[in-house]
């Protein structure tokens, strides 16, 4: 019989008895898969298994994220929604709080919209995270900005969006892919540089997680915004 333990607010450790460490979130839309994930039923609650190979946030949790800023009731701005793998779990966690999800590629957006229909707290926005004014009259102040855009200027994008949308004391979470900043540079140097950009612009970095072996040369930074 499967066992469930709440690891963070609305994030669960699932023990299916096979010795594999799994996490999952409660399905907001029962019986609906977003990316082919496993569905597990425990005591009349359906959980979606969170695949760390497909979600950097999932991988960070497994790799020892200290504190999870996204909680039940958090308002979230998600930059780089892609087809909705991670956003769907984030929406499960926030539960009845809005997740504003920005994605700029129309083709991917089409798939993402699929996941949004029926998942009522997930709001798709076709827009460029470099241009917050494109969605400034839609997105409210949020508790957490999560960014995963795989762009060279990702740290700047986070800062820019924080200025518009992040509450003072809110969290910025950013997944940094070394290769998309600079292919030639040593990843460690890149991470250090990105961290510095954030620290000089109003974030206090409180956690940094290397998500190997799930992704190569990827870090997840968590910072607190002191407003600017």
């Amino acid at each position, binding site marked *: 019989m499967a066992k469930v333990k709440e690891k963070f607010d609305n994030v669960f450790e699932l023990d299916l008895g096979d010795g594999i460490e799994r996490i999952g979130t409660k399905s907001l839309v029962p019986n609906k898969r977003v990316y082919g994930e496993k569905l597990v039923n425990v005591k009349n609650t359906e959980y979606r298994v969170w695949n760390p190979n497909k979600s950097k946030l999932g991988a960070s949790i497994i790799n020892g994220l200290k504190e999870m800023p996204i909680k039940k009731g958090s308002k979230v701005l998600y930059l780089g929604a892609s087809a909705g793998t991670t956003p769907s779990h984030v929406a499960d966690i926030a539960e009845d709080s809005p997740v504003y999800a920005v994605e700029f590629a129309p083709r991917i957006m089409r798939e993402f919209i699929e996941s949004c229909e029926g998942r009522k707290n997930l709001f798709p926005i*076709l827009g460029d995270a470099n241009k917050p004014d494109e969605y400034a009259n839609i997105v*409210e102040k949020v508790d957490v900005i999560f960014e995963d855009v795989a762009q060279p200027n990702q740290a700047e994008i986070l800062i820019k969006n924080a200025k518009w949308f992040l509450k003072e004391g809110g969290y910025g979470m950013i997944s940094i892919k070394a290769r998309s900043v600079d292919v030639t540079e040593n990843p460690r140097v890149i991470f250090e540089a990105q961290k510095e950009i954030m620290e000089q612009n109003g974030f206090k970095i409180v956690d940094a997680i290397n998500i190997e072996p799930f992704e190569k040369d990827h870090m997840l930074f968590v910072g607190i915004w002191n407003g600017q």
Partner: protein
Amino acid sequence: MLSAILVPYGIFVIKKDESETDETQSIENLTKNIVYFKKFDEEDIPSIMYELRQDANEKKAELKQALIEEITELKNKEAEESEESEEAEGIEPIDIAVEELETISFEASKIRPENDAMRSVMYELGLEYGVFEDLEDDFLNKMNEWTVQYTKMMMKRSSQAKDKLIVQTVNALDNLDETLNLFSERLREWYSLYFPEMDNIVKKQDAYVQLVSEYGFRENYTRTRLKEEMPQNLARTLSLAAKKSMGAEISEVDLQIIKSLANEIHNLYKYREELQAYLEVSMTEVAPNLTKIAGPSIGARLISLAGGMDRLSILPGSTIQVIGAEKALFAHLRERADSPKHGIIFQHPYIQGATGWTRGKISRAIACKMSIAIKADMSGNYIADTLSEQIDKKVADIKVKFPKPPVKKKSKRPQGKGRPSRPGKPGAGKPQRRDGRNDDRRRDDKKRDGRRDSRVDGRRDDRDSRDNRGKDNKGRRDGRNDDRRNEKSSKPTRDGKSRDSKPNNANKGGKAGKGEKRKVERVVIGKTSSKINK
């Protein structure tokens, strides 16, 4: 000072005291300063969001004008009513002077303190002003619906602009194929003066072109060098032919100009590849469902032939099934595409690969799904995976249900019109052709025959037919007419067709139906006429 702040569900008008500095623009001050709220019609909200993204300035100007009119009207009413009864019940007067209205600033989304403050209470205010019943269910449901609608509109828009680009790309590909054939032929003839044997040995156009541009002089066709680029035996044949060539000697200068032509053609071939790749990317972006089901080339041609995505999306499957029957004829005459039978969807691998008796059923099923796919593309849904599953299932069903050809009544048609797919059957093949049947029949047979030969020398016919376009040829240029005629002969021809012809290679197939001319041609030109474009 008045300023207007846009939120998804409406507009707040804020009146700031002169004394208030930016720093004091707290949330409390903001809500206290709201002097007017205009709620949008809920149905309009997605399209307002959308229009603001399309042309923010224009939309804001429009909203501003509407706001001013609305407030002015209300003020007038207020004035009237206050004349009648001293106290208009329950209605608070609007604290705006009409003169102030024109100066209202309408910068929706700059980082201004009041806008920033607004973002803190954006949806709480919606609750307060009765837009949402609560901040859980009602707010989430409404916002989800609005943003989904709005995003779909945005995607539709990005597709609409792009389908024009796709139509142009398809046209450019057609032109390019035409040009490539023309120039490749010129090159062959030209270079054949110097190295006539190669014409027969290297049949593929682009390979031929590349060889001329890279090798040039016959001395360069050494076996060692050729071996790197082609199969052993071909390299051998070609190098031997070069050694013993009967072609005329030409000078460096003469050869150089031929090589330049080859270079240009080679570049055009590269550009063609680029175009094809671009077409695929654009198609997946604009019409992911259709692309998944039809493939980029057929999909793009459907869009192009229908005259755009929106036009295509209103057509039923039965129409989609025959789209291109007329136009394909011209493509076929021009660029040696497969001759038109039932529209371009017949180039679909599933239909090509099907047995003759299931083809109609399968193409009907696929056309029907294509029609659903393009509708989904227009509305921004992604259902391609489901659709292709359904197609796979349907095709499998059809194959199970109709494993054998239907037993046919004895054909009334003259012998020789039978299925060429059954080899050995009398009536198929060359000898039959010569047996002096009536004109009509012969043409049909020729057509079939021509198809096979077309890979060989269709292009010559093309040129030839232009020179000798007689009454008969003119008739063939009339799409409708020809279509009907092809219909008659379609079965044998389709069956005789190679199965591997991919849609985008279709143009490499031959032009059929010019058997008569071809035969003459063959006599005149002899060996040069049989090159395989494959």
